[in-house]
Structure formats: C-alpha cells, structure tokens
C-alpha cells in the first residue's frame, strides 16, 4: 500500500529470534520515503534462522538505500546481522552510521575500558566453556553475546562509506541524517565519570590471566609455596562443604559475567526520535544504570508523558524498564513493541513487565514471538491485532499518521 506509506510513519519490527531489528520508515519531504535501521542482530543461542530473509526484506523495502543505521550497543543480538550479511549491506547505499561513544577507539578511556572488558570476557568464556555444567547455560549465553562483534563493527565503521557519528547523552540532532523534520534527542549513554566507573565492574585478575595465557578453565593463583600444604588424617570439611567452595568460585565468575553484560547494555544509545508530531523512544537494551542517569533530569517526566511509541528495552527483561518510567508514559495513549522470545533465557521476557506494558498501553502492543515461525519458540498468539498494527510474513508493522500543519 504505497499510498498510505507516504503519509505514515511505519515502524517495522522483524522476528529475528532473540534480538532486535527495526526499520523505521518516515514519509520524507520528497518522493522517496526515508529509512532508518535500528539494530540488526540475533543471539547465537536464540537464532531462528530468519536473518537472511530479514536482510533481504530490508533491501527490498528500502530499495537498497538507508539514510541512517543506528547500532545501539556491542552485543551480538543487536549486531550479528551486520557481520553475517556484510556482503548485502556493502551493496547498499548508507548515508550515516551512529554508534555509542563507548565504541570510539579514538577515545582513550572508552578504548581502555573496552580492551579490559574483552579480555575479561575471553577469560570468563574459556572458563565456563571448560566447566561444562548445564547450570551455567545462562552465563554462557551472556558471554557468547559479548564476543564476536568484530565483523559487524568493521562494516559499520568503515566498509559502508557512510558518515560515522558517535552518540552520547545530551546531544540534540535536528534534521538527523539529512532527514528533514527528524529530531533526535540522545538520552544515553552518559559520558560522566561516575557512569564510566559503573561500566567497569571490579575486574578479576584471575580471568584476565586466563585470557592472557590462553588456558581453559581459569587457573588459580597459588598464594603459598607447596611446603605449607597439609594433609589431615580426617579432613575437617564434609563433601557438602567442599561442593560449596567449588560453586563459590564459579558464582563469582558468573556474577562478573552478568555485570559485564549489563555494563554493555548500559552503553546503549537511548534516543527519542521526534517526527511529524510523534515521539518514539528507542532505548536499545538500556538497563537500570542507564535509565537512572536521565530519569533524574528535570524534564524526564515531560519526555515520557509525550511518548507515542516505546520499543521495550532489553527484550522485556526484569530490570530494563523501570516501573516509574513506564508509569509516566501516557496511559492508553502510546503503542509498544517487544522484540523477544523465551530462548535462550527463560526468565526473559519478564511476565510482570509484559502485564504492565499491556495495561499501560491499553493493549496496544505486540511481541515479536507472536509471529509464528516453524521450529522457533512460540510466544502468545495474537489473533486480533490492536489498531494500527499489521502482521507481515516475518514482521509486525505499526503505523502512525503524520500530523500536517
């Protein structure tokens, strides 16, 4: 329906599995609509093998021309499509690429942080791969998500011939990417010292060591020479005690892995896109620490009250949409989309948040996993779509009429 398309903003959420891929089509001033792609990735453990078709559809829909690509943060489930289908993206004409400032290798603080983080991830990944315990599935999935983004970044940073911009909280871009009337307010990631400190969980030299030596299961520091070792006739600890200590070591690595994952989620570009009288909030995977930073702003309540579309953060996980933020969005007056599925982490999406989103939007929301894909984890069926939504082969569209003055 090309006729309506030109008058509407259309937000297309693709079903990629566990990941984000959004194509926002704006009517534009001229004959051609303008295209913004926000993320294109799927988690290796939540991949339902639709990415190829999705990228093909993006090419077809846009005629091979993208005005702007926003890659919100350095996780596979937001980037893998750029790496895996680099060939197709290289053939497209891309005007501008936005990355969070934390990916800027020219920024000394950001680069140092990233180097350390990747070394830790490497050590942790090797450790948990060697432990081979089903208990650590969740942490292995988190670590997997943090690695292997080099191809995607290479493409986005230099192979598209696009103008590259690093985004940080506080920036305000009018006519973004040359799209007249597109006004973007960047709410995150912040750039202050305190935020950086939070991005940097207390490192464990143990895992850095594992990364440096290339060892599998991380080896412990030996604090004392063997002459101090001692054998008891009757050991003072029971088997249960010994098991406790064994788990303890892995738990601390596990906590670190999740802390790193959350830290990267919090580098997400959070942007409020204003166009044609609508305000669309795309927070990437921002979790608590990132939201908190800008929710303290005086105008935060006003920003949220004016939202007409919300992309639910971090696949609807437990701490990714602060309750008071959702409460401040205009009840029954905005729509939401949730790119999610219950694999690889059964606790995502968080059922309470799903219920809260349903209530606050007055039922005007969809979950990507409601689109049925053969062999893929099935979400709740959505036989009757709320007003403004349409189902496609591998996607949901949400359209909003553009107000004309």
């Amino acid at each position, binding site marked *: 329906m090309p006729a309506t398309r030109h008058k509407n903003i259309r937000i297309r959420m693709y079903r990629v599995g566990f990941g984000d891929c959004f194509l926002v089509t704006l009517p534009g001033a001229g004959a051609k609509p303008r295209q913004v792609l926000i993320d294109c990735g799927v988690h290796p453990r939540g991949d339902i093998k639709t990415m190829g078709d999705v990228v093909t559809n993006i090419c077809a829909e846009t005629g091979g021309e993208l005005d702007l690509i926003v890659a919100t943060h350095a996780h596979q489930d937001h980037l893998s499509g750029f790496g895996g289908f680099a060939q197709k993206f290289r053939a497209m004409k891309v005007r501008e690429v936005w990355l969070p400032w934390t990916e800027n290798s020219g920024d000394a603080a950001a680069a140092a942080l990233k180097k350390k983080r990747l070394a830790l991830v490497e050590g942790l990944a090797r450790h948990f791969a060697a432990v081979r315990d089903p208990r650590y599935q969740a942490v292995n999935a988190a670590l997997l998500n943090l690695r292997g983004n080099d191809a995607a970044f290479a493409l986005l940073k230099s192979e598209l011939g696009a103008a590259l911009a690093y985004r940080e909280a506080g920036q305000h871009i009018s006519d973004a990417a040359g799209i007249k009337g597109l006004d973007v307010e960047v709410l995150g990631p912040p750039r202050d010292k305190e935020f950086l400190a939070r991005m940097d969980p207390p490192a464990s030299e143990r895992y850095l060591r594992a990364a440096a030596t290339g060892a599998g299961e991380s080896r412990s520091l030996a*604090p004392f020479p063997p002459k*101090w070792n*001692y054998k008891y006739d009757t050991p003072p600890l029971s088997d249960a005690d010994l098991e406790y200590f064994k788990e*303890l070591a892995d*738990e601390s690595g596990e906590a670190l892995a*999740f802390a790193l994952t959350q830290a990267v989620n919090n580098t997400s570009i959070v942007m409020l896109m204003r166009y044609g009288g609508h305000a669309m909030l795309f927070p990437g995977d921002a979790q608590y620490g990132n939201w908190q930073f800008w929710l303290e702003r005086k105008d935060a309540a006003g920003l949220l009250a004016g939202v007409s579309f919300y992309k639910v953060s971090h696949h609807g996980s437990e701490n990714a949409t602060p309750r008071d933020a959702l409460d401040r969005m205009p009840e029954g007056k905005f729509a939401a989309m949730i790119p999610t599925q219950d694999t690889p982490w059964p606790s995502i999406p968080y059922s309470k948040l799903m219920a809260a989103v349903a209530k606050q939007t007055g039922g005007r929301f969809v979950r990507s996993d409601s689109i049925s894909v053969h062999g893929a984890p099935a979400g709740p069926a959505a036989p009757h779509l709320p007003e403004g939504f349409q189902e496609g082969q591998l996607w949901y569209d949400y359209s909003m009429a553009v107000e004309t003055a």
Partner: protein
Amino acid sequence: MPATRPLKIYAFDPTRGRKLNNYMTANVRYEPVKPGPVGEYLAVIDYDGANDRYYRPVDLDHPDVMIGGGLDPSESDPQFHQQMVYAVIMETIKRFEFALGRKVKWARDSSPKRDPYHGKLRIFPHGIEDGNAFYDPALRGIVFGYFAAGRSGVGANLPGQTVFTCLSHDIIVHETTHALIDGLREKFTVSTSADTAAFHEAFADIVALFEHFSYKEAVADAIERTGGYLYSAQLDPDVAARGAGAGIMAEQPQANPLIELARQFGDALGMRGALRSALGTRPDPTLLEKITEPHERGSILVAAVFDAFFSIYLARTRDLMRIGRANGAAGPGLHPDLTNRLAAEASKIAGRVSTICIRALDYCPPVDITFGEFLRALVTADYDLVPDDPHGYRAAFIEAFRARGIVPEDVTSYSEEALRWSPPEIDPKQPLKPCRGLRLDMFGDANPQRDSRNAAVLHGWASKNPAPLGLEPGETFQVFSFHPLHRVGPDGRVCFDYVVELLQRRDEKLDPKDPKSEIFPFYGGSTVILDRLGKVRYAVIKRIGNRRRLERQRAFLEGGARGSAAAAFTGPRPFDGLSFASIHKGY
C-alpha cells in the same frame, strides 16, 4: 592459667608497614586452643577453595610461637594469617561481650552435635580467590578471599601482588560483626526495606572503625598529626613542605587511618583509596530518600554515629585544649602530655560510644529494623545504663541523627523522652500480669534444661497476653530468643533484666490480586524487656497485622529489591535472607 595470650597482628593492613604503629600485639583472652587455631568460639580452617588444598594449621601453644608472643607479621606465612584472624575475631567478640555483659552466641547451628565444630564459627582465611570476604550463615562461617591486585593505580600495593582480605583488620572486624549481629537478631537478614541490608553493613563498619580507636599508640599519633582535630581526613606530614610543593616523602601528608576502612583492598581494586570512610558525606537530610544501595545508605548511619562521637570528643576535650593553649603551646605540635591525655580521652569515648551502639542491639525490634528505630533503641539502652547522661552522649546522638534526616516513626519529637521506648499500652481492665517463674542466669552458662523451661514459661505467659505484647491473638508464635541484660538502676545498683524476642510469621502474596502470586515470608512480633520480677519495662512492637507495614514491604520487594545484574537472566532470587556474598561483592 594466664589471663591473656599475646598475639601479633597488623593494626591496619600490610601496606602500612611499620608506620603508624601498624605492628601491634593483641592481648587475646586466654583459652586453650588446638591447632587451627580451634577454640571455644572459633575454628580456623585453612582450606583454599580455589586450589582445593589445606594449609598447615598454626599451633599457638607451641613453645616457639609462645615465646615470641605469637608469629611475626608476614604476608607470606599462612600461619600468621591464621593467627591474625583468630586474634582479631576474638578481640571483636571480647568487645561485644564487654558491651553486652554476657557471652555471645552464634546464630542457630543446624549441624549435628557430634560435628567437631558444632557451635563454633568456622573461619576460612583463604577460602576463595576473589576480592571479597563474607559471612554466610548457611556455611556457619566467614570466608576471606585473596586476589591479585590490578596492574596499575593500586596505591601502596605492588601491581599484581597478592592481596589477602584476611590481613585487613577492618575486613575481619566487619565480617565478624555481621556474624555477631546474626547471633543477636537473626531475622535482620530478612530484607524488608532499604534500611535492613544497609543497617547490617553500617553496623559492621561502625564496629570496625571504633576498633581503630582502641589502639592508643595509633590514636596518639593521629592526634599529634592533626593538632588534636582527630576527624581530619589527613595527617600532617613529618615536616612542613619547603618551597613549592612537597619534595620528599616526609613532606607529604597521609590519609588519616582512623576514619577510613580497608585501604589496601580499595587500592588493590583500583578505587584509589579506602573502601569507605567514616565521614565524607555532609549532613544532608534529603540523601536518605534517594540512596538505596546498602553500603551507600549505610554510610549515612555511619556518618551520624561518628558525628556524634566527634561532638562528644570535642566537648570533652575543650578544657584540655584550653589548658594546653594557656601554657603557651602555640604553633604546630602538641605537648606530648597533652597528646597522651587527648588520646586517652578519645579511646575512652570511642569505647563508650561503641558500647552504646552494641548494647542498642538488645533493644532493637526482632525484624524490619529502621535507622530511626536504631536511634530509639540506642537512646533507651543508654538511658538504662546511665540515666542522667551527664556528658551529653544521647544529646549528641539525637542531634547527629536529626541532621541526617533519620526520622523515627510514630514519635512526637526528637526529645529524649519521646524517643525512649515505652511500656506497652495496657487496657486498665485487663492488667498485664508479670511473667513469673523465669530462672535468670547472669553468667550465660549453657544450661539447655533451664533454657527450655524458661522458653515454656515465656510462651505460656505470652499466649495469655498476646495483644499488649504485639502478637496477633490466635496465631502461633515463637519465643525466638531470650537472654539476660544488665543495667544500672536509679539508685546506682546493677540490676538484671531479660530480653525476649517473640516472632510470628505469615506467608503473604507479593501481589494480593494474583492467585498465582509469588509468596514471601512476612514477620512480626516484638522485643520485650522484662525486669527481674517479670514485669514488662518495654515492648518494641512490629505487629504482623500492620497493613501499612505489609504494603510498604510489598512495595519494597516489588521495586527491584532483588535486582542484580544476574536477575534479568536467571530470574529474581527467591525471598530468602540477604546474601552477604553478593551485596556488592560482600565486604
């Protein structure tokens, strides 16, 4: 039998070297010990979980060890580590027993009686390779970690050197205090509001910080280098800098070790300085509303207590300072006699303030502690010991808490009378009869028969008088703990009271409208203080039927109280107790 056993320890941690009287001897109360050391209260078990091995346990009774007054301080000798954790924990226990006037007990121990460590707290000086140390009730023990310092920005540490949390005096006292609080108020680990976790942390910091002031040499040194102003963040350098900027080491000022915690640990993790400090937040009554992270919130309480301490110190030493000035002590440097007098005052006051805080624990409600209630407990406890408050201790506390916005609920004013706990409200038609038949024991000797008899007497009495004791009639309750408590009566005589914890529990739905809602345990009950004749002096009540309290707890639990980085991926933790291992990496 000797009265004490001298053992060498670090007063702070190894990075201080011999400076600031860091090598010191603790005169630990004597008890016979087995290799470990394993004594009456403690079993030091040097199991290294990361390397799955035991280290040779120290035998403190070996003549070579005894003749030297314990092993010499050394980072490379695990047996010195065992000695130090043993000595510092025993000193902390002594501090509590002195304040409470009775033997301390650890929290309930589910291990079988034949377990050789039954009833003892197990101490693992090198339990884990991690920048962490924690008390875990499930393990019945304290685990200390060791870890490699970072590669840069590690302060006085060598880059990459091994740092032992079990050699940090502060960390040892902090974790021991967690265990001691757990023995006194076991349900304080149930997270019911932003204050509960913060209280545990704050109290552990308070005890650790006041321990610094019991070392007279360190205090005297700090007094000399601060011109008597003990609360200064920095000590004066050995010599004043000549020319522009400090050129030699002796010209550089150092941080005041008395008011900071775990410097080596903080340095090694690249935090640039101590982990936390006693002061450092300006009194801001609005902070309490904003800050919920347990350590940060706890630091408000720590600052309030230290503010009170320094106010008392200044008031009590003003005359000394005046005498000093009158004798022409102009310019930098105090007369050594004055320094010693000031140090003696500071130590004495610190001991008193720390005692007041510890005694207050007996006057706290059994569950759901808030900072405001701690103030009330503190005022009441101190009133019971020193009824007339000649030196203004309580006034100083009240003032310092007020400045930080710590507001007790249901209190009409910040006056001492209003803050003191009161006896229960009694319906005049149904007077509350005293609890008769209790057998008091002021020495705390273990006597299971007497204990179970007293429990039965208390239970029988409370079930006849549920309402005035804060219990919901018709619902089961537990006599959770009871023990004697001493105070000084108005006539100056020492009296003995009885502290009793009564506890009720309901399973409540997190979301009352959802039939499949998660369930959490909701506790209520009271702390009752009886006099020698069984008459109720105070009842500190947390009713289980209090809807407002229930709603508040619900809101707290719903509001991401269990939120951690892992929660999003593994689901929220079940509603069991606090996990000290995971509260911001334990220490």
